[in-house]
């Protein structure tokens, strides 16, 4: 682990974008997330790692309230986005999700054209005042997702006709088109081949300039490559949270060490 190349670390203190404290999640009888405290910094990539079923995806979905769609799911505790409780009764989830975008594990483009896929979010949020403005937003989002060159000649082709890696980058373009402040990525590369993975990872690093990115991943190498902060989840608890370099080279908790060296998982 020591000889693994790590991205440069920002040690200077940054703004806290999301502050989660004492978060408990229940699925009916199951206690899925136990008392998690995490602070996610602005313009930083935070990786959630941990074995399957440890609750990292569940916790990620709490951050933009995607868990609301699951009836049996209940969330307790505080999650503050810029100091505002996102589970406050006055919060409209639609506004929240415009601020906190999400990319899913499986590429899920709408069965519409590439253009419509990206333009959908800006359209429903009223971000463009005309066709030309919308065109600009779409082009910018596709460029940011590093897929513009590949699709610029076939914007009217169906998004579902792209390859897996292209589809995922299209989904990223769709997520960044609404100018979110935080981008949540739930195992964005699990369905991709190594080349597409490398492209997405490169992309994540670029996105860090503008957004706060939270990424759930099964690949520890990926976490080490793209993130500045890493959180290790195990059996629903947050075991350790800190600088990525420190987690991978000098973990405090024996469980973290066991996991990253491959003894549990």
């Amino acid at each position, binding site marked *: 682990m020591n000889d693994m190349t790590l991205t440069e670390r920002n040690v200077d203190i940054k703004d806290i974008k999301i502050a989660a404290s004492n978060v408990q999640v229940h699925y009916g009888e199951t206690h899925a997330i136990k008392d998690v405290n995490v602070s996610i910094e602005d313009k930083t990539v935070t990786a959630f790692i941990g074995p399957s079923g440890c609750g990292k995806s569940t916790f990620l979905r709490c951050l933009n309230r995607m868990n609301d769609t699951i009836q049996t799911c209940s969330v307790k505790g505080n999650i503050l986005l810029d100091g505002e409780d996102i589970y406050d009764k006055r919060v409209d989830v639609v*506004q929240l999700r415009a601020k906190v*975008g999400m990319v899913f594990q499986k590429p*899920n*483009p709408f*069965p519409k054209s590439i253009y419509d896929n990206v333009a*959908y*979010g800006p359209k429903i949020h009223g971000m463009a005042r005309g066709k030309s403005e919308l065109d600009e937003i779409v082009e910018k989002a596709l460029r940011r997702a590093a897929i513009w060159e590949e699709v610029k000649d076939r914007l009217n082709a169906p998004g*579902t006709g792209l390859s897996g890696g292209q589809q995922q980058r299209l*989904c990223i373009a769709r997520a960044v088109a*609404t100018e979110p402040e935080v981008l949540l990525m739930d195992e964005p590369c699990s369905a991709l081949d190594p080349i597409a993975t490398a492209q997405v990872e490169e992309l994540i690093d670029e996105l860090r300039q503008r957004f706060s990115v939270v990424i759930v991943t099964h690949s520890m190498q990926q976490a080490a490559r793209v993130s500045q902060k890493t959180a290790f989840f195990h059996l629903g608890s947050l075991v350790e949270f800190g600088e990525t370099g420190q987690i991978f080279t000098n973990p405090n908790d024996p469980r973290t060490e066991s996991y990253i060296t491959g003894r549990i998982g």
Partner: protein
Amino acid sequence: MKTSLDRHSGGSLLMQSTRTKRRNAAETRFKLYGIAAIAVSLLMLMVLLTTIVSKGLGAYQQTFITLQVELLEKKLDKKGNRNLTDIKKVSTFGYAPLIKASITETVEELGIVTGLKAKQMAGILSKGAAAQLRDYVIANPGRIGDTVQFRFLATSRVDGYLKGRVSRSSIENDKSIAPEHLDLVDSLIEAGLIEKTFNIDFIIGADASDQRPEAAGMGVSILGSLSMVLVVLALALPIGVGASIYLEEFAPKNWVTDVIEVNISNLAAVPSIVFGILGLAVFINYMHLPMSAPLVGGLVLTLMTLPTIIISTRAALSAVPPSIRDAALGVGASPMQTVFHHVLPLAAPGILTGTIIGLAQALGETAPLLLIGMVGFVASNAPDSIASGLLSPNSAMPAQIYEWAKRADPAFYERAWGGIILLLLFLVSMNLVAVILRRRFERRW
């Protein structure tokens, strides 16, 4: 050293073991059962279709008799002033002598020898001939005094004679026709005055009384069926799709929605006559909507079709992958935007198919119509407006077929089969539309 034979201790791959043989035999048997089942159903279908076509095709042809009728002024317009109110005072009885005179003259001209009297000779014409003449005169009073050529319907007996249903031996006990009539018909056929041609009135005309099967048509009951289907479409589609969207996408999953779900599934299995008696009690007895009206029929059929539409719509909605909902919610679409922008378009082919199947079911339903009085003799002509089409008494295609099938005259029996052909054509074309729409809207994801 092992020989190659030793290595086959588990049995050679080139030989089938007993187990494998039995398994393969079972598989072959199963395939044969399948083929046999398909063959039997195809055979049944063929028998059904050939029976329907062979018995019903006759209804689309009708025997007509061409006659020159002199519209005598002294009979039709005694005052000679072409005043319509005066002309209308002459009833169909006043027109009968003109027809008698015409047929007598024709027979004499052709030199046909017959033992029949003029009145008897007129018996080969439909009882509606005089009415046809009167309608013409009222529409064209200017032609009074002229000699005009008419194509009259032959009676169902003569029509049956030309179609092979009636023969000299079969009419021995028939009071309304005698062998002499058939001789006369033979002579007229030779003279080219009687011919059997395609009869559009069967498709567009109204039903006729028991005495005149030759004049009965499906047209008005087709209009009745179409207005009912319109009512069903206008009510069942929005209500059914709305209910399904709410239940599937918005309603909390608790015991209340469970009970609703079970009830909807049970409603789909309720016999249609139950919906009929419900319609009678609620729409007619309680709400006092007009009896026998397509509006009431449509309401009853809506109740009957709703479960079908709800069940198929819910199935179509739940077949849309959840990842699409996640994607839409993830970019900040509201639940309603998610449903209407993404889920509904993807579910549309399924919803359309379900709706059209429901409509086809409604179109072919007879039992509930019996109870709200939509079965019976409706001699009225086509309704003049959409409102009267919905509110005035009417029949429906299957009810009309049932009505004809229970009448005594075998000529009606032929018309019932003919009506079934029309009904099947409607159903097949609706299913075809369903298939085409499905193909067109189907999208991959």
